């Protein structure tokens, strides 16, 4: 048996791929030839070393990143990390970009240029609240678990914008100069001085959001955004 044939037999033996006759042939050669035994030992040791290399654990956040990207939302990655997930998610949602741009271009509402949403989000419901001397437009943009609420309020007098949500299913993440802990039992209240003000709120979860335009204790107008 030449060297190549012997090495092929040894490697097939290591892979458990020898037939019975081949196995018997290899056993006979190993009995007779010390050089064959040395070679067999070397390949066995290589196999053992390779099998002894530990399997690496994937980064703990990998699964969440993948699932966030496939559900339409891209999870935040640590600073300095690269954004292939973002790149691929962007390609996944490329079609939505076109739709989103068309939506923005075709929308004749007055505030369309001031309340532009994320290109990866599906346009959500809008809500117009009006009262004498005050009006408010709101739009919800959902992207997976993430919800962005964009509000523009114009008033000739001091008013208050109140956002209500169910804190058991929706979490306020921040926005309009408020921190998450500023949400009291699912209620956010923002004072708006006369003039025009735009504000953005970030939430996670799937609940609905209701809005009120208030002046002191008086509710001027209210409505619900279908953001779930």
């Amino acid at each position, binding site marked *: 048996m030449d060297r190549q044939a012997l090495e092929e037999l040894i490697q097939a033996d290591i*892979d458990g791929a020898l037939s019975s006759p081949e196995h018997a042939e290899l056993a006979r050669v190993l009995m007779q030839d010390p050089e064959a035994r040395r070679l067999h030992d070397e390949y066995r040791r290589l196999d053992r*070393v390779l099998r002894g290399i530990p399997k*690496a654990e994937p980064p703990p956040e990998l699964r969440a990143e993948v699932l966030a990207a496939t559900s339409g939302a891209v999870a935040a990655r640590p600073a300095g990390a690269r954004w292939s997930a973002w790149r691929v998610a962007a390609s996944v949602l490329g079609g939505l970009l076109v739709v989103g741009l068309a939506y923005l271009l075709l929308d004749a509402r007055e505030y369309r240029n001031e309340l532009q949403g994320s290109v990866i989000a599906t346009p959500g419901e809008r809500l117009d609240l009006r009262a004498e001397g005050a009006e408010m437009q709101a739009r919800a943009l959902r992207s997976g678990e993430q919800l962005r609420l964009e509000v523009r309020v114009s008033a000739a007098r001091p008013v208050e914008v109140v956002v209500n949500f169910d804190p058991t299913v929706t979490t306020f993440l921040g926005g309009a100069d408020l921190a998450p802990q500023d949400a009291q039992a699912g209620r956010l209240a923002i004072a708006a001085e006369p003039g025009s003000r735009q504000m953005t709120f970030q939430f996670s979860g799937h609940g609905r959001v209701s809005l009120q335009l208030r002046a002191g204790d008086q509710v001027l107008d209210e409505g619900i955004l279908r953001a779930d």
Partner: protein
Amino acid sequence: MGDSVDAARVRACLGGDSRAFGELVEAYEKPVYNVALRMLRNVEDARDVAQTVFLKAYQGLASYDPQYKFYSWIYRMAINESLNMLRSRGREAGPVDESHPADGDGPSETLDEDQARERILAAVDRLKPEYRAVVVLRYFVDRDYEEMGQILGIDAKTVKSRLYTARQLLKDQLPREVP
């Protein structure tokens, strides 16, 4: 992983059950990441490739042919994405016995098992990608000749031949055993 389980998950996913895709990710994130890591030897690149593989799998789930095993499909993507990354970053190395002599004092020196593993891992990294791929599939996701052939789109005989050459090259980098 049972292939019938995977097939059921794919069907559920295509039927709108997003949890089913989460189960597929959970089942395959470790092997896919390990394939990429051993092909690329870089944790960030491996992470990027693993993400890309799962996202492309999600996008292309409707094109998955259930007559093939799911792992063949996803491991093939992992290998191909790794090769793409190697090509795009110009990191293809020459064969281990031609371009990169072993580190240290050479293969005849005596090293313990941990050092031997490091030496062999470094040698795997210097194999040509087609040889590295069969070593990775054999030793990091435990595939046999037929399965490797399916994954790589080559016949089992070619798999055996590549594995034979790869092991020959690696064996020459194996240090002597500690007495």
